[in-house]
């Protein structure tokens, strides 16, 4: 079970990353003589209403989703660690202020922050990923604070302190490396949510360039053909669900 899961996860990740540099066909090449082609050896998943290769578009969309995930994870890790550790080091009102701010951010729905950011800055994987990462920073700050507090009281940290390891050395050598795995597991547990949230954003198409094949945007585009070519809307949805399910399963098992 673990083996198959890891293999599937690696396979999906590989496909998403390959999508950045190579696709079987030009994802934007319009071929009106090949509209709505069914899956065939040449076009594995068929073609869409403009004769574009669906698999190639899915692969680019996968790369864009991977970029979102990378941004969300990086901001969650860095932001959560910085704010959480700072709050743990600064006891008193300054630490409390950071924690209150973190609590406040739990309330605001990630999707609304991302919606606002997309409305203001336009939608692309980097802005969407940064907005969702920033919106999700609250819980990670609280978690990092709790972890750092516990670690600072541990005998080995006390010992290092007694030996004269101060400030940043103490934090970087002894505290931060010990909290990263836990923090990463929590961020991973929310990665599936980030995939579906980005799909919802792209579905709304806020300021998006419609020629960019995001999975959510493809759902929006292909929903019109639900009557005659329902297979088209199956692929992007399946891609989102598979990636989200794999992420959830991988991080649930750890």
């Amino acid at each position, binding site marked *: 079970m673990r083996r198959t899961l890891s293999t599937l996860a690696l396979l999906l990740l590989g496909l998403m990353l390959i999508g950045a540099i190579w696709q079987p066909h030009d994802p934007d090449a319009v071929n009106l003589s090949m509209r709505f082609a069914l899956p065939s050896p040449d076009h594995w998943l068929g073609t869409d209403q403009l004769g574009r290769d669906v698999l190639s578009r899915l692969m680019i969309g996968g790369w864009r989703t991977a970029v979102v995930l990378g941004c969300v994870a990086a901001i969650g890790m860095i932001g959560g660690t910085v704010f959480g550790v700072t709050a743990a080091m600064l006891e008193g009102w300054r630490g409390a202020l950071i924690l209150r*701010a973190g609590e*406040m951010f*739990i*309330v*605001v*729905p*990630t*999707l*609304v922050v991302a*919606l*606002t950011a*997309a*409305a*203001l800055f336009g939608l692309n994987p980097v802005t969407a990923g940064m907005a969702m990462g920033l919106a999700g920073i609250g819980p990670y700050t609280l978690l990092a604070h709790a972890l750092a507090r516990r670690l600072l009281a541990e005998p080995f940290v006390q010992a290092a302190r007694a030996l004269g390891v101060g400030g940043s050395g103490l934090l970087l050598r002894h505290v931060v490396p010990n909290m990263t795995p836990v923090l990463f597991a929590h961020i991973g547990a929310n990665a*599936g*949510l980030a995939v*579906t*949230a980005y*799909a*919802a954003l792209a*579905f*709304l*198409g*806020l*300021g998006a360039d419609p020629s960019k094949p995001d999975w*959510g945007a493809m*759902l929006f585009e292909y*929903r019109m053909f*639900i*009557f005659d070519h*329902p297979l088209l*809307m199956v692929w*992007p*949805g399946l891609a*989102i*669900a*598979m990636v*989200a*399910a794999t992420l*959830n*399963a991988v991080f649930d098992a750890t």
Partner: protein
Amino acid sequence: MTLPARITLRTVTSLLVISLLAFAVISAMPSDPVAIAIRAWNLPPDGATVAGLRAQWGLDRPFLERYGAWLARFVRGDWGLSFRTGEPVLAEFLQRLPLTMTMALSGLALAPLLAVPLGFLAALRPSGWIDRATRGLAVFVQAVPSIWLGLILLYVLGVQLRWIRPFTRDWSGLILPVALIALHSLAVLTRVYRRDLLEVTRQPFFRTALAKGLTRAGALWRHGHAHALYAMISAFRAEASWAVGSTAALEVLFGLPGIGQFLVESIAARDYPVLQAYVMVVAAWLLVLNAGVALCLAWLGPSRP
């Protein structure tokens, strides 16, 4: 300070901070609202109009003063005019908010009502068929985006069975999104409720209750329900935030004229008053829900005076 007062204070402070952040980000945008308004409302693009609008909106004054003036107007119900429709934003929102709220709140209200019996039955027989089915449902809804599930439902119910007409505005347009929201929350809340019920079965007092002659169901209900309910209500906050966030996509999918759809239509016109109002409405809505949840938890909680 009493607890309700503390919760009210925290809610109001949070709303103020969120409004300040949103106002700051929107004012920092490079595009000039006066230029947008002149284009959107077809005003004469001369110096008098520009100066008039700038003075009216206080764009020549310092940031905090501008924020204060905006806040005072906002509280009095003057939310400005929409750049896109030219109508007062407040009126536009009042017209659309009931639909969005009905959708999200009915879905959210339905979920706990069904989650308690389902979670109870699942905990009654761990690894029984109800337990496995609810587990499968939870895995399913957390991976499958609600927009895609909605599309598939439209296909099955609308195209195959012909029970409804896809993308038309009728009763089915509201039932399906409510069902989608309820399904997601139901699956998640059932699992939380079941997990905490089962946690109680491992406590010594649970064994004592069984030894006294209570049935498993009786002991779970008498000694586990309140504990599991507490956990479920805490988890409800995250679900509420998810539900409110996903209303916009569901409104667009099912063609419902709610505030989310209004926002999406307004974005292309850089309709900042609408954006600011949307952020405020959603934040206020969720903060009030959260305050309600906090009160519920305090009332249910063990540290009750």
